[in-house]
């Protein structure tokens, strides 16, 4: 123990300065779309493994479904799709995650003021794996490491749904977890918020829906914030929680 303490004293502070400085750039982020270059040829929609892109009389990219595989970017002949380098930001509704975005944002302000009103500014979070690949769960774990240090935002993870303000859901809601997921939510006392983490919880897209895999958290719970990504970076998860509680500062 002493040797660990001694070692700690020698180590510099590692805590990330995000959101004051931007998160590191990554190049398996979701694509960016330039409508001026798009000629609606539909090549992207044909290669997308998860049906995140629909091209008919217009182009639509559903960021809740996108697993950032970059296949669409590779085949786009006009350069309308290009490699994004920053994580896709969380939103309050599924339709806010569809690109190009519809003009008016929805119930956002009202939720923000409600959340501020009922929850104050600090948050107790309960994680629920409803059938994931474990990737999102590991990223949630990473928010608690010394670098991302989610506690500096007044957010903490609790062991019981009874102590939680927010249910942080990963996974598609598999058949074998549906009952446990509903019970976990029911065990929380109101007011409570639900945040869906990753493509699985946001839409179920990574796995075809069927006898085993479901369509995400919103198919059984009232989701307040959707965090896109496969998996979302730790910063995106923190941002989604801040958005849920009405404390969001957009860092970009």
């Amino acid at each position, binding site marked *: 123990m002493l*040797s660990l303490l001694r070692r700690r004293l020698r180590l510099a502070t590692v805590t990330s300065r995000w959101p004051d400085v931007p998160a590191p750039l990554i190049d*398996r982020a979701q694509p960016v779309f330039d409508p001026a270059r798009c000629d609606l040829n539909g090549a992207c929609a044909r290669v997308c493994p998860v049906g995140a892109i629909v091209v008919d009389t217009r182009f639509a990219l559903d960021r809740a479904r996108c697993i950032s*595989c970059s296949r669409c970017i590779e085949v786009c002949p006009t350069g309308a799709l290009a490699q994004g380098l920053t994580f896709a930001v969380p939103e309050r509704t599924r339709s806010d995650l569809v690109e190009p975005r519809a003009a008016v944002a929805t119930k956002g302000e009202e939720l923000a003021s409600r959340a501020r009103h009922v929850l104050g500014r600090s948050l107790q979070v309960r994680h629920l*794996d409803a*059938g994931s690949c474990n990737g999102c769960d590991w990223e949630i774990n990473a928010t*608690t490491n010394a*670098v991302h240090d989610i506690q500096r935002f007044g957010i903490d993870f609790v062991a019981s749904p009874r102590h939680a303000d927010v249910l942080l859901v990963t996974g598609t809601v598999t058949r074998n977890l549906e009952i446990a997921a509903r019970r976990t939510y029911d065990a929380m006392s109101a007011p409570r918020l639900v945040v869906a983490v990753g493509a699985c919880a946001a839409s179920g897209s*990574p796995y075809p829906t069927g006898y085993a895999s479901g369509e995400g958290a919103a198919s059984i719970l009232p989701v307040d914030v959707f965090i896109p990504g496969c998996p979302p970076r730790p910063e995106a998860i923190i941002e989604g929680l801040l958005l849920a509680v009405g404390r969001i500062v957009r860092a970009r």
Partner: protein
Amino acid sequence: MIETQNVAADALPETCAALVRDRHARLVVMTGTDERERGRGYGLYYVFALPSGDLVSIEAQVDPARPEFPAVTRVVPAAHWYEREVKDLLGVEPRGHPDPRRLVLHDDWPHGLHPLRKDFDGRRGVGRDPHPHEPLTGVRGDGVMEVPVGPIHAGIIEPGHFRFGGVGELVFQLEARLFYTHRGIEKAAEGAGVERVLFLAERVCGACSLSNAVAYSQAIENLTERHPGLRARIIRSVLLELERLYNHVGDVANLCAGAALQLGVYQGGVLKERLQELNAAVAGHRYLFSVACPGGVRRDLDAAAQERIRRESVAIESEFRGYVDALLETESFMERLVGTGVLDHDLADELGAVGVAARSSGVARDVRASQPYAALRPGMVSPVVRTEGDVRARMLVRVEETFASFGLIRELLHELAEVPPADLVTPIGPLPSDRWAMGMVESPRGENVHWVMTGASGEIARYRVRSASYNWALVPFAVAGNLLPDFPLINKSFELCYACLDR
């Protein structure tokens, strides 16, 4: 080379037992298939590895009119979970199996429905059957309690249900009910294209994503006999070791969490985070998704990336050394690991343990040594083996392997620097019809096997993933006789993933 023996279903136990007895073979994977559409029955494939590394496949067809066969488990215990799966998913009964309970399907799944039968439509939901709630453990007696835990746990971890049977804090028996995160990946792969299945393979498990993607790619490459060039193979090997590094380092840190040593969790967590940011910097993804593909790799490691890996690996290695030394000096921590959660050598051997768990109990299994793949050559990796079989042994094996990986990465980078830029993907072309092949990779958790069979027109007819997390079958044996509060520690020392077992 794979040697194939077709036998009558009734001759399976005898043939498999003889292979184990006379040629010291070990069971690597077993798969059941529905080949009725191709004018056959249900296929059973038992793939064994010989000490030479060569594979032997014992194959049999089961008459659909009488879907049963004599269980191989009685003579080759390593088949126990595979044969239960065949019963659940295909409805083919292993006669005389010592444990005929359900494994993959939960109690509320209707009788007579089997997801991997071709006439089962995997795209629709299935209703729930009412079922009685039964105690899982067989422990009875004065003062005996059954403590249920999960499926939703108190930490940020995956779901699984445990029943601990015992007296006070002493656990006599542990029963695990798993497959909560069963997403039907194998069914979803049926009839899907090679590309779509790649993205499923990557998501069998987020923490071993690259290992799964490479094992799947190897299976496809073995089917088409089109293999990646040297540069792509070296890149695969480098990145696979980077995957091992962030897992192993994180697993050592997690062990500290199992013993509530917060300083250890914190310092190890920082190193894991640095390794994952290195992944993001050189491969674009903290979990190395979208990196490998059948035929090669989807991205290069240019000189700058190589230099970054070299520099960081030296820096992180020295940090890790300091961290481990400090842990080893922390007696209150190390004491808890000694003699805790012992996995017996013979049990590990017979039940088919793989990976760190096997090697910590004296069973020298490491695919990198026995069936070298990608850029690895025989002799480049020698398995790290310990014999104590306890939590401490599993920690020390990880530590030693971590140092070995740092060295191996630098050796591989040295080779990479000599290889001129080249096409990173060999076109694989269409799949041949009605054949099977497999790929094997030593993931951070152990041996991952992906087995792919094609149908009449070269579509994927059966995709079978046997991940290292089948080690779950061994955990209850290591827990019995220990104290309940030591379970998190034992569990974390195996560090198995639910997602890649459940699929």
